[in-house]
């Protein structure tokens, strides 16, 4: 067993510097790497290019990095719910590259799996396809999309083991598995870190080979964006 554990979030983020391209898992505030984000704020690294489906809210998630103006470029599919984001985007401080959600997922998975490019129907005929190759297969038009290239990927899992194997919970899975191994260094934080051999090898969502560093996360807030209940 190859041990991937590091003792703290500080060790986990060693090597992160300003100007890097980072992938961050999560959908909205669900399944975001809370510990890594806090540490990025503490480190004060800037000029970051962040690849993440969303950009958090004003005071949580990637919103914390926006507050400190640490992000220069944001690649996302949906960026509502964030006034500071809006201000920086409209003032031109922040570059925003909007990408269809499925394309964003597949570009991560392509990076993970050594596929340099693929074709998708998403975005054909729209401004998303500008400057990209268009190609017809079986009478339908597709856009060529290339794999992302990133320096660090920060993901959050539910359970993990010392070998770096990960299991996600519910819809907190989302982009997290696809970002593992999709950057030069993958850092996983987990709610529960277990000894190797604790997880059923059949049930592992991401094998440890795709994770470089794993650590026991602390103080998860797991904020809910839209608490919605039924009455009966």
């Amino acid at each position, binding site marked *: 067993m190859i041990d991937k554990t590091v003792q703290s979030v500080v060790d986990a983020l060693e090597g992160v510097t300003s100007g890097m391209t980072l992938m961050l898992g999560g*959908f*909205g*505030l*669900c*399944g975001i790497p809370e510990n890594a984000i806090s540490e990025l704020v503490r480190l004060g690294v800037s000029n970051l290019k962040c690849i993440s*489906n969303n950009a958090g809210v004003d005071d949580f998630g990637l919103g914390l990095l926006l507050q400190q103006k640490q992000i220069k470029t944001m690649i*996302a*599919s*949906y*960026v*509502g719910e964030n006034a500071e984001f*809006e201000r920086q*985007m*409209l003032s031109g401080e922040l570059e*925003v590259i*909007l990408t*269809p*959600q*499925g*394309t*964003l*997922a*597949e570009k*991560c*998975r392509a990076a993970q799996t050594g596929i340099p490019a693929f074709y*998708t*129907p*998403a*975005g*054909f*005929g*729209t*401004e*998303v396809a500008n400057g990209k190759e268009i190609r017809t297969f079986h009478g339908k038009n597709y856009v060529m999309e290339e794999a992302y290239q990133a320096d660090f990927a920060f993901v959050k899992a*539910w359970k993990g083991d010392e070998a770096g194997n990960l299991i*996600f*919970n*519910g*819809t*907190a*899975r*989302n*982009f*997290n*598995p*696809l970002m593992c191994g999709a950057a030069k260094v993958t850092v996983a934080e987990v709610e529960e870190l277990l000894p190797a051999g604790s997880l059923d090898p059949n049930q592992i*969502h991401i094998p440890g080979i795709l994770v470089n560093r794993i650590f026991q996360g602390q103080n998860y807030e*797991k*904020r*809910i*964006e*839209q*608490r*919605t*209940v*039924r009455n*009966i």
Partner: protein
Amino acid sequence: MALDKMDIAKRIAQELKDGFYVNLGIGIPTLVANYVPEGIQIEFQSENGILGMGPFPLDGDEDADLINAGKQTITSLPGASFFDSSMSFGMIRGKHVDLTILGAMEVSEKGDIANWKIPGKLVKGMGGAMDLVASAENIIVAMMHVNRKGDSKLLSKCTLPITGLGCVKRIVTELAVLDVIPQGFCLVERAPGVSVQEIKEATAGKIIIPDRVPEMQF
């Protein structure tokens, strides 16, 4: 009389067929889940990674790890599954989802849809909409026939940035059900008490009026 949002959702629910996997957009489409006809089995997919989505949880049962694409807390039904975003959009692109219901700002008589961006205003992003409209065989748009300024949203050509080309099959508005056919918008049904003339006037794109246009039945 023009339909309200609940009625639009109710009318769209009549399009659900037994065994359909359905993806519902935010807004009116979400309401469709409340009107699934008796005796048919439907599974709802939410593109953030669940199939077999159930109703909102009871107060106190919310789980931060279980949300829908609108970021609302949800529940899962027996037979549900969770998966990553790649698998989720794989289902969508692979045409495994039978029906997509979503809102729109504009639809053209060619079936083009614009629903993600108003130039000069805040752009929130397309989320999964471009993947959905580029992939689904069966897309129903739920929207108001005219916008707040009174302009028709059914146009000969979209004026707003496109989300997808030639993809909308059917539109349900507060006034009518229309199909997109090669000749333009084909009027299929009128809302109860709404005249063909009213619908014609509210439609800027080319509209085809069959001899008989029945009223919607609820």
